[in-house]
């Protein structure tokens, strides 16, 4: 028996196994400890490295951040760290964003804060370490919103069945990012398109009551339609759009009261915080100038009837091209003519009536002979018995044998005449060798000159002169035909184409221009009438545009001024609302004498001051027209002895007369009737008028310029009168524009006002109210077709939707027609604008 419990081997094995067991256990533990700790460290460091890489990429990207684009950065990470795969990305914990790396088995995590960069972009995304590619992408889009603004000029138009109205659609105040296109849709469905290069579009509107009653708000009693027009602006970079609507008033009734057309718009409708909105308030005087109602005027016509007013002024001009009709005949002058006499006849058998009646009919034909050797001769000889000319050569030389070119033209308009050419050779007797004929029709041109009716007494004008200007008159012949008269035109010295008809009835005149040279081509001519006749037309036309309630009077002046009684009322003699009475007086004026401007002004003042109680409330105007300068009426001149003036000679500039006139003008301009100063408007008519003097006399218009016009012909005179009639048309009075910015919005800089037209506008004032900052602009008068635009900038710093004005406080108050003191209030539409950060940038890991 053994004393040991086990054999040595078994004991050994036992011990070995127990010890191995323990060692394995311990080593496993240690493995866990050692390796895991190391792996933990390694992973910690590698994660720090990767997160630091992502963070530095992020910061670098933020430093070069594109405002509208993307940045793609590669992230490098090993496939596995310490045998572990992992995820990397962004995560949110407690409202803060972190870069987050986590191992697959969720044992190891790393957070790295990214600080304040989250203010600039949103983060998101995750990537797995085993993916082939790791990328961080930053994208940002900046969007600028388009803004559509549609303005109408004018906002009210007149249209009837025969003539359409015209309005200009103005889209030029719209804006967008880059290039944009626009589309306008009318009330009847018509669409008009264009792009940024077309700022305006002129639209013709026809009168169509059925269309208006279907698509617009239509009032058939006063024939007025309110039609809606909408504009859509789209930009092509982002495909965003904005719309704007406005109303166009179409009416057949021109006595619509004038009014104000008010629009408010903001550019752009969406901004980033701290970027300003630009707010516009646009006001247009709406109404009709002719036929509409405005201020009542009291007008005194002061017309110069001095001797020089009998002179000519241009009435009309004309010009044209004619290619003369020439009959060309080549004849063969053969050797049988050698040494012989040759006689060529050019004539017509026609009586040339009625054109050449009473004149030398031979002159009607013009003939030219071009010989074979190049010599050109005009056939100047006149035939007696026949109507025509002849050419005679006593000896045909050998060089002249060949083809001769004969050219004939006849100055006979309208009718065709037979033209005959006879060629005689003297063979001992005059032998008719050759004859040829044709039916000839001349090329000619007609010009029509119309003298209008109802402007002169018995519809007779003092004279009408029609002529072609130099050097054209030598190449043509002219006739003038009217009613039953046909006159051949030539003047006292025999210059052709000059026709003077005196007296000239008010009718159509046909002026025939007939070429009288082979190379006639271009002609220019003019028609003139008496200056006083021209003023008659202008003044009577002006009276025609006056309102029924306007008062008008007439003073004419030469050596002295004469007031014309036009009214039988006991209260007023020299002013009347019946323009016809004044027109009749105008028709009877006749020119002779000097120019006494002092007395003219003096008498015009008396006309206005005759009964100020009636005139009070109207705008008193004196329209002084002169074609020369003061030659009469000095300080020593006395109206009781009008033809005597010791200081002036009646034909040249008289400085004493001028000074007296200027003094009178100044006193008139300072005279007020019913609170309104008397306005003097002057018109310088013709080339001899003293413009400097007339300009000095004139008053200032509401916009600061002088009421002075210079006219050299009938048309310009008419334009001057027209302009005077529109300058004084009010559409609104005592206009106060107030716009209140609610608190939350801050005014940037100072507001600006731009004015087109004659309106007087004050500078904008800015003050604080309990509801916010107010901007106020005063306009004492706004005339028809004036435009006022107020622009100011407002900014908000916090994002949100803002109301850009305060309803009720932001308004326009004004006194509309008939200006009785009744105040009308128009509340500005409340616009809203949005303040927001643009689309945020996004950083994504994938």
């Amino acid at each position: 028996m053994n004393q040991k419990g086990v054999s040595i081997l078994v004991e050994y094995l036992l011990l070995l196994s127990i010890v191995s067991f323990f060692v394995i256990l311990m080593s496993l533990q240690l493995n866990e400890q050692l390796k895991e700790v190391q792996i933990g460290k390694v992973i910690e460091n590698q994660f720090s490295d990767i997160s630091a890489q992502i963070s530095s990429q992020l910061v670098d990207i933020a430093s070069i951040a594109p405002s509208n684009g993307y940045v793609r950065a590669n992230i490098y990470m090993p496939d596995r760290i310490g045998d572990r795969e992992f995820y990397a990305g962004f995560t949110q914990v407690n409202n803060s964003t972190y870069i987050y790396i986590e191992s697959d088995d969720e044992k190891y995590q790393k957070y790295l804060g990214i600080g304040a960069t989250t203010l600039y972009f949103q983060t998101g995304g995750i990537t797995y370490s085993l993916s082939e590619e790791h990328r961080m992408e930053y994208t940002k889009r900046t969007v600028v919103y388009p803004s559509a603004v549609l303005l109408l000029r004018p906002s009210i138009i007149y249209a009837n069945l025969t003539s359409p109205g015209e309005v200009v659609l103005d889209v030029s105040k719209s804006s967008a990012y880059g290039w944009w296109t626009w589309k306008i849709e009318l009330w009847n469905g018509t669409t008009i398109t264009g792009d940024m290069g077309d700022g305006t579009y002129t639209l013709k509107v026809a009168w169509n009551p059925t269309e208006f009653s279907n698509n617009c708000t239509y009032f058939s009693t006063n024939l007025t339609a309110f039609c809606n027009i909408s504009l859509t602006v789209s930009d092509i970079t982002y495909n965003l759009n904005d719309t704007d609507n406005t109303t166009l008033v179409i009416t057949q009734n021109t006595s619509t009261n004038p009014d104000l057309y008010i629009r408010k718009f903001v550019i752009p409708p969406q901004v980033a915080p701290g970027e300003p909105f630009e707010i516009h308030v646009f006001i247009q005087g709406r109404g009709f100038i002719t036929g509409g109602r405005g201020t009542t005027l009291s007008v005194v016509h002061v017309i110069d009837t001095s001797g020089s007013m009998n002179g000519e002024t241009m009435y009309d001009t004309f010009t044209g091209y004619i290619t003369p009709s020439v009959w060309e005949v080549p004849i063969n002058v053969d050797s049988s003519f050698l040494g012989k006499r040759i006689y060529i006849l050019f004539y017509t058998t026609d009586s040339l009536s009625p054109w050449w009646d009473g004149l030398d009919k031979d002159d009607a034909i013009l003939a030219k002979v071009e010989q074979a050797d190049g010599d050109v001769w005009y056939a100047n000889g006149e035939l007696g018995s026949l109507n025509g000319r002849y050419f005679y050569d006593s000896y045909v030389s050998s060089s002249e044998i060949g083809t001769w070119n004969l050219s004939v033209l006849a100055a006979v308009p309208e009718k065709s005449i037979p033209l005959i050419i006879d060629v005689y050779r003297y063979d001992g007797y005059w032998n008719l060798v050759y004859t040829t004929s044709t039916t000839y029709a001349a090329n000619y041109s007609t010009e029509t000159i119309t003298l209008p009716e109802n402007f002169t007494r018995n519809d007779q004008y003092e004279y009408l002169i029609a002529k072609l200007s130099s050097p054209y008159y030598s190449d043509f012949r002219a006739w003038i035909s009217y009613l039953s008269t046909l006159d051949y035109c030539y003047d006292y010295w025999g210059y052709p184409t000059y026709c003077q008809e005196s007296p000239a009835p008010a009718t159509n005149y046909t002026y025939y221009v007939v070429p009288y040279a082979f190379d006639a081509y271009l002609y220019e001519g003019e028609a003139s009438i008496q200056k006083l006749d021209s003023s008659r037309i202008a003044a009577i036309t002006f009276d025609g545009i006056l309102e029924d309630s306007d008062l008008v009077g007439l003073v004419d002046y030469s050596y002295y001024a004469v007031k014309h009684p036009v009214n039988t009322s006991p209260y007023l003699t020299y002013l009347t609302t019946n323009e016809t009475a004044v027109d009749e007086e105008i028709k009877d004026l006749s020119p002779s004498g000097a120019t006494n401007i002092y007395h003219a002004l003096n008498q015009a003042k008396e006309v206005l001051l005759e009964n100020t109680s009636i005139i009070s409330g109207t705008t008193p105007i004196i329209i002084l027209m002169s074609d020369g300068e003061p030659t009469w009426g000095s300080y020593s001149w006395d109206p009781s002895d009008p033809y005597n003036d010791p200081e002036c000679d009646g034909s040249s500039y008289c400085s004493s007369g001028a000074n007296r006139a200027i003094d009178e003008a100044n006193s008139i301009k300072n005279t007020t009737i019913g609170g309104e100063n008397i306005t003097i408007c002057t018109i310088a008519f013709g080339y001899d008028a003293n413009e400097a003097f007339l300009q000095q006399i004139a008053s200032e218009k509401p916009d600061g310029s002088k009421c002075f016009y210079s006219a050299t012909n009938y048309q310009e005179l008419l334009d001057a009168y027209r302009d005077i009639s529109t300058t004084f048309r009010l559409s609104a009075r005592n206009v106060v524009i107030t716009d209140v910015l609610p608190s939350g919005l801050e005014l940037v800089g100072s507001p600006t006002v731009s004015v087109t037209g004659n309106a007087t506008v004050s500078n904008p004032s800015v003050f604080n109210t309990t509801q916010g900052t107010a901007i106020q602009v005063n306009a004492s008068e706004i005339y028809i077709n004036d435009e006022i635009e107020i622009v100011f900038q407002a900014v908000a710093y916090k994002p949100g939707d803002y109301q850009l004005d305060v309803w009720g406080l932001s308004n326009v108050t004004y006194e509309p027609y008939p200006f009785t003191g009744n105040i009308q209030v128009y509340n500005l539409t409340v616009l809203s604008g949005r303040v927001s950060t643009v689309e945020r940038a996004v950083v994504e890991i994938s």
Partner: protein
Amino acid sequence: MESMNERGQVIILFALLVSGIIISLSVIHAQNLLAGMESSRTIMVFPKEEIRNLRDIAETEFVNEMGLRKYEFDEFTYNVSRDIRLLYAQKGSYAEIAVFASYPSDITNTVSYFNVRITYIGGGIEYNDTTLCRLEGCI
């Protein structure tokens, strides 16, 4: 004799075990040394200055030439873009400042604004930006 052999074997066995542990630990440790490579490398390589340089050229040089007529301006910007592309291609990157739309003013015939796209590819990143530039600045 036998026990001496066995002892030796056991010692060798344990030695092997321990050395195995040391080797695996050193492998893990070696990975450690690689830490820090990535972040410092990216700092070196990120082409921040190149991109800023391209933006400066678009915002300053091109805007200064807005007084030229449209066709002259297009020629100028095309030449600059082409030369920049060549110079960067030499270094292995792609850079381009492309003006893809320039708008002349109706009144003066000079360029009133233009759209430009700046592209840069290199250094592990791809950059792309589209801006609208006026005389007053770029947005």
